[in-house]
């Protein structure tokens, strides 16, 4: 990772003074002029800022549930207190302060909100008509300049369905046809008329990359590169070379006192630069073990870190390597065989990552599976135990909560039941690893956001108003 250069426009004055002091008096002084902010990629890193502000929420005490905290702990007959949108306290035998709404949760389970680390909700919206297919800008193998948030349609009815299944946050990614698919966006699963109203405040961006079959299949069909895996790696390296040179040019311009024309800003390279600076997390679609290992070498060559491999069907073959390199593995339990690179999928993938001390994540990549990530984790947990890996439910819940939060860069805010965190909480009717469990209540930032008994929470998407839908879906 490169050291972060000073990129703040307000330092221009100081820079100008330094430049003046070192300039011989006889020379005409080239006074640096502050760039129009849009011309300098370092000035505004957040041009589409989150406008999400949680509604005021009541103080709530949930008493008597079995808590899977997302920190490897299971608490029986525990109490959780929520106040001002945050988790206030978690534990056994906590006294409920006066003025708290108390929910008797004996016989039920309480977990952090589910976080889906790989979703296309809003960008591959329902209904699945071509007018709403905004997932993948396939026009070039490198579209690092596109941002998934600019495709995101907040009215996708699937957001409501995911919320009813306990999903409180997710990362939306561009598709995987290209090597660089564009920027990902992390959202809170709250109803909103704008994308900005869903954006997770302060969450870092991700860069969607894809190796393997998809890019070579898509561009072979278009008669252009890459058509082979070796061409993919060449194209990756070329792009990172270009990004490194872009970084050098900006650094040189800044270090040279902003003299002369600045480098020309390039939206595509800005995203890659963000990765080199450690501000944007690499979210890499990659199936095969050998390809993951190669991608790690590419990352080392250019000085960046791969935050996670997505799908990562063969991650179990290199579990110790991925654990050592601190790369999360976002995968399924059941999905396999869709492509040859998915031929070696096994149900135990997540469990084997866990056994190696790695960061396992169960993701959906699908509008139906996002509604039962808990069941998918249960399949992986069962298979892992059957293979002899010792995993508790308290461990496995992290695959859906703390670990995706870590991989999305939001673990300091959410993903566990710990005091001070966002009160993103799900109350389950039964053990969440049971097929019969459903979300009885879902809170997002302490705001009650789902209750199957309350019709206010159904069909919040404008799209479904006046359409022949069923009241309960």
């Amino acid at each position: 990772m490169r050291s972060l250069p000073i990129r703040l426009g307000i330092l221009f004055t100081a820079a100008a003074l330094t430049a003046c002091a070192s300039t011989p008096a006889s020379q005409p002084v080239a006074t640096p002029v502050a760039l129009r902010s849009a011309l300098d990629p370092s000035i505004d890193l957040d041009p589409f800022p989150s406008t999400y502000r949680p509604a005021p929420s009541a103080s709530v005490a949930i008493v008597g549930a079995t808590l899977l905290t997302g920190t490897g702990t299971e608490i029986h007959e525990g109490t959780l207190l929520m106040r001002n949108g945050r988790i206030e306290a978690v534990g056994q035998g906590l006294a409920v302060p006066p003025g708290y709404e108390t929910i008797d949760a004996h016989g039920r389970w309480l977990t952090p909100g589910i976080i889906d680390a790989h979703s296309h909700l809003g960008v591959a919206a329902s209904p699945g008509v071509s007018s709403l297919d905004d997932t993948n800008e396939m026009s070039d193998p490198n579209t690092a300049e596109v941002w998934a948030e600019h495709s995101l349609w907040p009215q996708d009815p699937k957001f409501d369905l995911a919320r009813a299944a306990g999903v409180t946050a997710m990362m939306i990614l561009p598709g995987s046809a290209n090597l660089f698919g564009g920027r990902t966006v992390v959202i809170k699963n709250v109803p909103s008329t704008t994308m900005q109203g869903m954006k997770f405040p302060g969450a870092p961006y991700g860069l969607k990359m894809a190796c393997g079959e998809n890019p070579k299949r898509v561009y072979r069909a278009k008669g252009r590169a890459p058509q082979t895996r070796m061409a993919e790696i060449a194209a990756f390296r070329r792009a990172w070379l270009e990004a490194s040179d872009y970084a050098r040019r900006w650094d040189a311009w800044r270090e040279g006192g902003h003299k002369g024309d600045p480098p020309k800003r390039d939206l595509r390279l800005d995203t890659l630069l963000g990765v080199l600076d450690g501000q944007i997390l690499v979210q890499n679609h990659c199936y095969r073990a050998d390809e993951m290992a190669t991608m790690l070498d590419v990352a080392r060559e250019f000085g960046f870190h791969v935050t996670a491999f997505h799908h990562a069907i063969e991650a179990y073959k290199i579990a110790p390597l991925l654990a050592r390199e601190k790369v999360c593995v976002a995968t399924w339990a059941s999905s396999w065989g869709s492509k040859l690179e998915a031929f070696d999928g096994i149900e135990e993938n997540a469990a084997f990552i866990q056994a190696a001390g790695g960061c396992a994540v169960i993701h959906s990549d699908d509008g139906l599976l996002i509604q039962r990530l808990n069941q998918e984790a249960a399949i992986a947990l069962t298979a892992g135990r059957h293979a002899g890996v010792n995993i508790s439910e308290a461990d496995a819940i992290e695959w859906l909560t703390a670990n995706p939060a870590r991989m999305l860069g939001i673990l300091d805010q959410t993903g566990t039941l710990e005091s001070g965190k966002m009160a993103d909480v799900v109350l389950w009717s039964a053990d969440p690893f049971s097929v019969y469990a459903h979300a009885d209540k879902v809170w997002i930032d302490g705001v009650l956001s789902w209750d199957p008994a309350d019709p206010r929470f159904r069909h919040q998407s404008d799209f479904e108003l006046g359409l022949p839908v069923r009241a309960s879906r």
Partner: protein
Amino acid sequence: MIAGRVSLLCSVFAVACACISTPAAGEDVVAVINAHIHSMGNAGEIAKGALVARDGRIVDIGASVAIPSDARVIDAGGKIVTPGFIAADTSIGLMEIRLSADPADNATQSQTISAAFDVSYGLNPQSVVIPVDRLGGITTAVVVPSYSGGGDKDPLFAGQAALVTLAHGHQMLLEPRVAMVLAMGEEGAEHAGGSRGAEAAALRAILADVRDYARRRLEYDQGKTRHYLLSRADLEALVPVAEGRMPLLVWVRRASDILDVLSLARQEHLRLILDGASEAWRVADQIAAAHVPVLLTPIENTPASFEALGSTLENAALLAKAGVTVVIKGNGTHRDRELRYNAGNAVAAGMPYSAALAAVTINPARVFGIVDHSGSLDRGKDADLVIWDGDPFEPSTRPVAVLIGGREQPMTSRATALRDRYLPVTVSATH
């Protein structure tokens, strides 16, 4: 197996042997004892009982069953036993990989071999998919032809479905040509040139052609009939459909489309099976009154298209309540092992447990005409069964043993071989 032991058995257990006139050499007797049996048949649910199979057929089942002394005894240890599950609407045996690998045998774009396309010829009993799905408790499947996704290049009819066994061995075909497959609604409209009305007109014209052809085969061969829309092979394939002998399996989603196809079937005297049927719950009473069964994926609840706006998790429950014969499907070929979770999700959405279990066993057997030997654990039926270490609909449950035709199946697959090769060191160290 020695004849002497069998004859001894016949004198002791005369009833059990009554059906066996001459005990053949090589007879295979298996008994599953100490089992919690959901028979899905006449024996009902047996909290603790046993069943005996001879040469692959069940000869006795109940709470109190005499166990032949020559039987291989499998002690279920009180665990749950169900009939083997039946995966309806799958491509098992027709493809190894869905995308960018060898060609799959599940679809054709031929315009002259459409209805005549018969999936029973392309089956591969060595398919890597079979053991994987078998480990999901599936013992039988209805292999259904698909469309290639070519829009208006695809023919009207997808072809004919076949019944297959997932038994380890060299022969997977049980019954060819069990249904004719047709898409209606949006997809069918696309095949017919772009509108539902065009497809309806085409179907009526084709059925008239088929009936005319069936009466005048000789004249057809002599060129003395009018021009028919379809090829001779396709016309021939459709004769059993027009005569109501072969069911027409129709992919359809919107409620109004379902009513249209019910009406078409009534007028044309067709036997009908609905598939997909996202909005079937809206017209459940009409479907029940027409005695038409429905194949569905109960977890499909997104408004995936404008013809599926009414999708709901409660579709299966509402149809069952209305008296419709419901068949629950898996998630397609490689993911058909998820069939049992789909059934569990249907229960979670209000379907009675026994109805969901019927929807993966006895119901598909009825719908596809194999109820005389499959779908339940009854005397005389195939000993296709699964022993589960818990509720089969729960992800925390795994099959302990799978028997097909009384034979224990390997509990391994390519996936378990990969698993074993890459066991974590912490695990393999303790093995």
